[in-house]
């Protein structure tokens, strides 16, 4: 079971971060954010911060899966889980591109 977790955790964390980021963006562009009167610049800052957190989480996972303490005893699972962790990190960076590249609420 632990091996299944090692294989599935990094990408699941990506999915959670991705969905949370999208949800956060939804809140930023909703009337609720206007009611809070915080402004769009602050909103973009929050998005950036959330993105940084997601990247940090992925890096931490990658280091953990390579470390002696958390790595799988099976060579196959170790290699595959580290590979999938790299995939999750790349996916996190890739899907963060819009935060830098697009306008917030148009």
């Amino acid at each position, binding site marked *: 079971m632990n091996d299944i977790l090692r294989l599935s955790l990094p*990408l699941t964390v990506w999915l959670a971060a991705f969905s949370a980021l*999208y949800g956060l963006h939804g809140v930023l562009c909703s009337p609720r954010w206007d009611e809070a009167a915080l402004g769009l610049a602050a909103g973009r800052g929050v998005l950036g911060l959330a993105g940084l957190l997601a990247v940090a989480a992925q890096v931490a996972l990658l280091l953990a899966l390579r470390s002696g303490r958390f790595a799988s005893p099976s060579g196959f699972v170790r290699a595959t889980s580290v590979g999938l962790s790299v995939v999750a990190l790349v996916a996190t960076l*890739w899907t963060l591109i819009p935060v830098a590249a697009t306008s917030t609420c148009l």
Partner: protein
Amino acid sequence: MNALQRHRALTRIWASEPGWTGWLTTVNHNDLGRMFLVAAATFFGIGGLLAMLIRAQLASPRSAFMGPEVYNQVFTMHGTIMMFLFAIPLFEGLTVYLLPKMLGTRDLAFPRLGAYGFWCYVFGGSMLVLSLLAGVAPDSGWFMYPPLSSSLGSPGINSDVWLIGITFVEISAISAAVEVVVTILRYRAPGMSLDRMPIFAWYMLVVAVMILTGFPPMILGSILLELERAFGMPFFQVAEGGDSLLWQHLFWLFGHPEVYIIFLPAAGVVSTILPVMARRTLMGYGWIVGAAVSLGVLSFGLWVHHMFTTGIPHMGLAFFSAASTLVAVPTAVQIFAWIGTLWTGRPQLRLPMLWILAFFATFVIGGLTGVMVAVVPFDWQVHDTHFVVAHLHYVLVGGFVFPMLAAIYYWLPHMTGRRRFFRLGETAFWLIVVGFHVTFLAVHWVGLLGQRRRTETYEPGQGWEIINLVSSIGGFVTAIGFGLVLVDVVVNAAVAIRGSRDPWGAGTLEWAMPTPPPAYNFASLPEVRGRDPLYDDPDLPVRIARGEGFLGTPRGNLRETLTVDVASGRAAHHVVLPGNTALPIVMALVTGGAFVGMLLKLYWLVPLAALGVIILAIRWVWTLGSRTDLGPQDVGRGLALPAAPEVEDPPGWWGTLFLLIADATLFGSLLFGYAFLWTVAPNWPPPAYLEPGALMPALAGAGALLAVLGPRVAERGLRRSGQAGAGLGLTLAGAVGAAVAAGLAIRGAADPQAHAYDATVWVLGGYVLFHAVLLALMVGVLGARAWAGFLSPLRYGELRILRLWADYGAAATVLGLAAAGLPGALT
């Protein structure tokens, strides 16, 4: 005991009953797999017929063949049947049939659950087809967007048929998925560690987990939409605080993973067959496993790309555009690993290989047009035109139907024990492939010229006439090809000559048995030392038949098999599977009663059917377990394993765990929907929030605490002194506390028809109440089982199952009621 005696003894134990009742009472995966395949093929025939009606209608402009009322039912049902009644059940059937054989075991983990799922599928599917014959079939398009599909746009029964029929059918997808996950993780030949699993099992592991997390959002959406239609709870009505976009989110949260749920089994088939056809092993096994897992998870981040034109801000769309382009990478990894396998092998152009080549040519085009529509501005133009229709047919036919045809021709000798003799298959191949490409290349083109999908006809003079005619002709050629495949398969299955055991020279375990396969698969369970056991040891089939593996000596009437450790594949437990019974089909019929009651608004039938299901479920669990301590069981080869009733994680614990993952996804989708309405729906906040007071949170908290403590206390008592009563009592008290708290929440909310918030509180409360009642029922059943002697200090595994449900119920109580009560407490 010689091989023949062993064969007779095992056949007596594992075979279905003789005569026609055997079909109704069988729980054996050999039968159920074939029944799934035949049923799915039948629905494919019906869906294909509807496709031909569509192409006949569109062949010429101003066609008077069908009016919009009929045409709308035809295209809705074509999509619905192909997606829900053909594609998913077809690969389920193939998996049910193949998986235990490939994994080196005798049956799936939960044979009766598999049979129950099959009958739910057949009954639910029949409801839909009957509605078509009665002229009241769903007509809002296969993705059922409200308000069109709700009371406003569809006052008739049509939408109810879809919502209720499909939910009924989805029981089979969920139960098959639970069964497949547990089988792959636990029911393998000893020695088959994760990295020695056949690649198909990896793919199906991913697919089954995807079903468990992908289907619940749509099941929830269907429940909410049916609640809106039947009881006026306004989840999707904007005036009362709902939002029609919520449906689109819930539907595509399912709908996009669904595409990969359909594609990945086919990719698993390609990864299995292609190396055999290339006379080598698969290139990059670990890479492919990684690609399949990546694809499975990434596909959950694509759902909004079906909603690019709904007015979501560009950054929101851009997230999904990025994810949609990224998902092409693991697909590319697989494609090039397959081509690399061919380059480094000696590929042979036999019929399954031809179909795989057709898969490449078609699926690559579908993937490339998929990348096109992932580019947001391009999608703004082609969304809801025939271009998208063509794209999705390239993906689904190229990425699913063609590999499945390869699978049929590859495993047909396995199912029939015969060699293909008549060569209609090659003619059919060319008719289908050429016909398909003519049809749908034309459909791309006419879409770019502006033809929308779902119009029953069109005006001449826009340059569409010739293209549509060509497309229709291609469609008919394709249909003739499929007809020939049917004839070819039937004729070759019925009258062709006997073939050899392993005609393709494959290395996986399904070819290590006589063909057609005996009901028990393996006379004894082999010990596995590599990924391709038959390449490692060509004499393996003989040694299996001689009983040199595990469990080679049949005992009494027991359907014996064993489970392994998840990661290492070490033999772990001895399991006895249930035998033939009519319980699954009866339970499916009674379950159907509840759905028919909802559909026809005979609401008195619903609680009656629910009561019937409860009684049958108690009967179901009563046949499991043991009333005496069994001790270690001899499984042969000098090995003794603990019996499943005497372990802390019996198969039922694993099944529960994965069922709860699906349940948690449903609950998570509900919380998402609530947050979505709060953020996006125009008419929020509601006039008043629920006032939680002090009693409801206190009861919920105390109930949750007791529910968590109870099973633990019960286990301690049972293992120390043989007494579980006190702990079960605590659990019951916890369940009652949670139920009363949920009742208070429901009573405290305003009229559920008034505002989507109140309707949501009702559903949250109802969800908590349902789990509390379920927990109380389980405590009752376990108490009765303790009294009847099913529990002992050694046999405490059932309390672990209760503990899973209790922990989950406690978490749902706290989260659900907090979500319902917090807005009121904070304002």
